[in-house]
């Protein structure tokens, strides 16, 4: 089984790959939920929902809402999330399971080729299924333990980040924070456990998003800065 050394760059790629795949799946599920709510409850449901992520979207009907969710000109569009997931996956693919990479690339290719065409709920469901396949690999892959622990950590952080932003689920985050802490500790024995003692959303988000910075040793980054400065001076 391959468990090679992992560089700072690669650790970041793996972590962000996990985050973006999880983000894509969560946002797709939110799109389906929003689609029904736009039809059944309130045409503006999607606007309010995306506003929680500080995103303004505009649409005329339920199909258009889905299209804007997938291709809209905003940072949480599925097209841009998948593109970022794929970019990170390309750079880290030597440490990733091939079928998972291929499935992600396939989603990307589908999204690129379908731009400008109608997006249906059935297509969204297919993407969710594909992403579930990839997320299944995250949790079942044993061969490249360290690499997949970074991916899983990204996946956990993202899930809780979105839950906090969209639903403010503090209790759930606290209950599951142990899982993130355990993963972080496995990756770096020097990692100190985090606890959330605040009900301030901004602080809680900063804490959860800051876990990776405690796994990727600060001294490694500091050394980098010192090295670069000394080279400049030299």
């Amino acid at each position, binding site marked *: 089984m391959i468990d090679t050394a992992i560089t700072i760059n690669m650790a970041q790629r793996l972590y962000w790959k996990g985050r973006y795949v999880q983000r894509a799946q969560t946002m797709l599920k939110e799109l389906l939920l929003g689609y029904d709510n736009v039809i059944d409850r309130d045409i503006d449901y999607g606007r309010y929902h995306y506003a929680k992520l500080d995103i303004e979207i505009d649409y005329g009907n339920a199909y258009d809402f889905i299209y804007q969710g997938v291709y809209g000109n905003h940072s949480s569009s599925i097209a841009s999330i998948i593109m970022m997931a794929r970019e990170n996956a390309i750079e880290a693919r030597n440490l990733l399971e091939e079928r998972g990479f291929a499935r992600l690339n396939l989603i990307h290719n589908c999204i690129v080729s379908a731009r400008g065409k109608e997006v249906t709920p059935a297509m969204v469901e297919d993407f969710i299924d594909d992403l579930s396949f990839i997320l299944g690999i995250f949790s079942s892959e044993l061969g490249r333990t360290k690499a997949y622990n970074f991916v899983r950590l990204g996946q956990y952080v993202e899930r809780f980040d979105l839950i906090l932003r969209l639903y403010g689920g503090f209790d759930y985050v606290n209950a599951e924070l142990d899982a993130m802490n355990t993963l972080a500790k496995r990756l770096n024995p020097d990692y100190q456990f985090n606890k959330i003692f605040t009900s301030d959303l901004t602080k809680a988000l900063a804490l959860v998003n800051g876990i990776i910075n405690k796994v990727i040793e*600060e001294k*490694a980054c500091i050394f980098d800065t010192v090295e670069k400065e000394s080279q400049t001076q030299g």
Partner: protein
Amino acid sequence: MTEPITPELQKFYDIFDGVDQSKVSEFKDFLETNAVNFNLFKEGNFIERSFPFDMIPRIIPKKEFDHLEAGIIQRVRALNAFLNDIYTDQKIVADGIVPKEYIDSATGYLPSFQGVIPPKGIRTHISGIDLVKDTVSGEWVILEDNLRVPSGVSYPLTIRRAFRHTYPEFFEQMKISKIRQYGTELKDAMDHVNTGGLNVILTPGRYNSAFYEHSYLAKVTGATLVNGDDLIIEDKVVYLRSYNGERLRVGAIYRRLDDDFLDPQEFDAESLIGVPHLMSAYRAGNVAVMNGIGNGVADDKGIYYFVPEMIRYYLKEEPILSNAPTYLPYYEKDREYVLANIDKLVIKDVAEAGGYGVLFGNRLTPQQREEIIAKIIENPRRFIAQEVIEFYDLPCMLNGGIEPRKADLRAYVIYGEEITVSMGGLTRYAMEEGNYLVNSSQGGGFKDTWVVEL
């Protein structure tokens, strides 16, 4: 002219006639789905492009390949000996075999590395030798030696697996040499020269045309894929910066970037993809760099002319494989011939690669002809001229039928404890009929290469 059908190729066609040919499209799907890309930069834009693949393989009978293998190993041994000589005593120059001017003016020659002996004396760890099969003699002819950063090996290795999955019939019914041991052989070669520490593959990054290959090779060798800023040098030792703050010693670097970009302290100061001070570790013998620094002097198009003489000089053997008939305008006699016969020659600029800087004399306009003649007279060292080799076309599945296309072969050689030639290689074909330029950077496609024993 298409290569005559051998019994081995006939066997392929016999099986081919019986298989479900509609599954051919699965190869394209496979390459696209898996992003098996050879990317291009066009007009400043990065274009992701999967490498066009043709399923009819080049088939080389085992006996014929044995001959090729012996010739290629001989050539790589001589080239390695040449590099060791050039960077130490330069006996081949002193003995008048290669003119000193040819060494000194070779763009890949790095005099500042004179006297640096790499681990185990190996400089040509991974070579890509380009050959074509001449329709006149029926013999294989060497066109080029690539001793710096030869790319392409990952494509036949990748497609072979897909081929076995899609059409197992060929592998069940034909005795096709295996190539999947390439990763192990490369790892063994890295271990062989490793000075103590990790094996790493140094990539220029995701936007390099061959990034897929860098990633692939990291996977199959277990080496760590690194960018320049992942490595640091301390006390002339190379370390990898691990995510957890540890610094892990590096013993062998398979670098996939040219000398110019490798160390901004030593070469191009503008390089952002290299490792500052890496050459201090290399000079101190604390790390193996694969391929060796300064190898460009040996795969210079001008030096190519002298390779048969190198074989005689260093190995005391007759060359098993021939060069294409080549003229050096540097020599007055050759220059006169070249200028008088330019219409039937190919003129190559020695500073160019990837199919660039190649002019076919019979296609020049009168003005282009005058210009190139003036350039040759002004700087004869910059050019070589070669007789046009009428090399074989291979059958390709194109435009709904089977059409002939010019094709070459790149053989991959690993120099570790032993020298091994991969029992296959990358066959590249031109996309347009009659085009002699098969390079992937010129839009060509690839085939798998099967070494077959009946």
